[in-house]
């Protein structure tokens, strides 16, 4: 088996990162989770079978220790947009991970990524568009859907 093809690196083990890591591990992907705070790993499911690395992901030393350069996919979702923007670029352009997805809360900052080979998810815009979609539905349709 090609080790590169199955490893998923999740950087930032908050509610989103922890949930995603647990989900991927259940799907039998190799998963490594990085967070600066060891207590963050409490958010992983009890039976989580992946690796946990405690450290600051803005440091190459931490990324190397976690073997991120071997990953097929990296998802960067710490609570800090600036950290996510830096780490995503380092992982994509310095370590050469083929697919990198970064979470960025602030739509104004997210624009920076255009042309930087990093895919982004902006929860603010996602939630807003979900909200618009709900509002567009007639009330009766919502009632019957629930």
């Amino acid at each position, binding site marked *: 088996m090609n080790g590169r093809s199955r490893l998923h690196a999740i950087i930032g083990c908050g509610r989103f990162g922890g949930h995603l890591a647990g989900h991927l591990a259940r799907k039998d992907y190799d998963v490594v989770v990085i967070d600066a705070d060891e207590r963050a790993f409490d958010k992983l499911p009890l039976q989580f079978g992946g690796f946990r690395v405690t450290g600051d992901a*803005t*440091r*190459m*030393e931490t990324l190397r220790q976690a073997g991120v350069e071997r990953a097929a996919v990296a998802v960067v979702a710490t609570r*800090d*947009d*600036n*950290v996510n*923007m*830096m*780490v995503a*670029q*380092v992982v994509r*352009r*310095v370590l050469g991970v083929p697919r990198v997805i970064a979470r960025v809360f*602030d739509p*104004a*900052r997210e*624009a*920076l990524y255009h042309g930087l080979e990093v895919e982004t998810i902006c929860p603010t815009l996602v939630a807003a568009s979900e909200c618009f979609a709900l509002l567009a539905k007639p009330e009766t349709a919502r009632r019957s859907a629930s």
Partner: protein
Amino acid sequence: MTKLRVLLAAEGQLAYFLGRSLVARGARVTVIHPDREECVALARRLEASVIHGDPTDPRVLDEAGAGGADLVLALTAADERNLAICQHARRRFGVARALAGVSDPENEDVFRRLGIDAFSPIRFVTCLVEQRADFGSIASLMPVASGAVNVADVRLAPDAPACGAKIRDLDLPPGALVGCILRGDRPVVPGGDTELTAGDHLLVIATPDRQRAALLRLTGEPA
């Protein structure tokens, strides 16, 4: 000549002292600082514009006039913030020059690979310490022209090979010369016949690649 417009993101005393130093050199300075009270204090003490806000926020950079800046200096305490500031400045506002300070020396190279000029104060100081450790006779060393040339102040010990030698017989490598001799309190502009004696301070001007060989010939160090 129009004034150089500098946008400075820094905290604590650095914001004040660097801001003051840039103003004294004729720059038009704008400081961005996240703390409101610090902003008030800076505005009182500095002949500079002070903008309160998060310098990593593109809206704040816009308000601070990033679009018209010649140079952006990102010297906050966090490497990722400095990268964000420089990238917004370069990519969004088209600023010609942006420089990021880094705490982790390894990020100096990482930032350059991401297209952002960076420098590590730790690497800079370590470099100075190393050069002093190698040559105990160097009293001070000053890089000039971004490190293209070094000026070293070298004291000749009594056992130095250059003691008693004439300048023309020193056989210094090309790219190195003795620019001035301080003998006691007296400066001596050396000619070919000038003889060096113990206790002389030599101002040695050399390119970095020749400096080691030049100092070795003069002082005999490192042993």
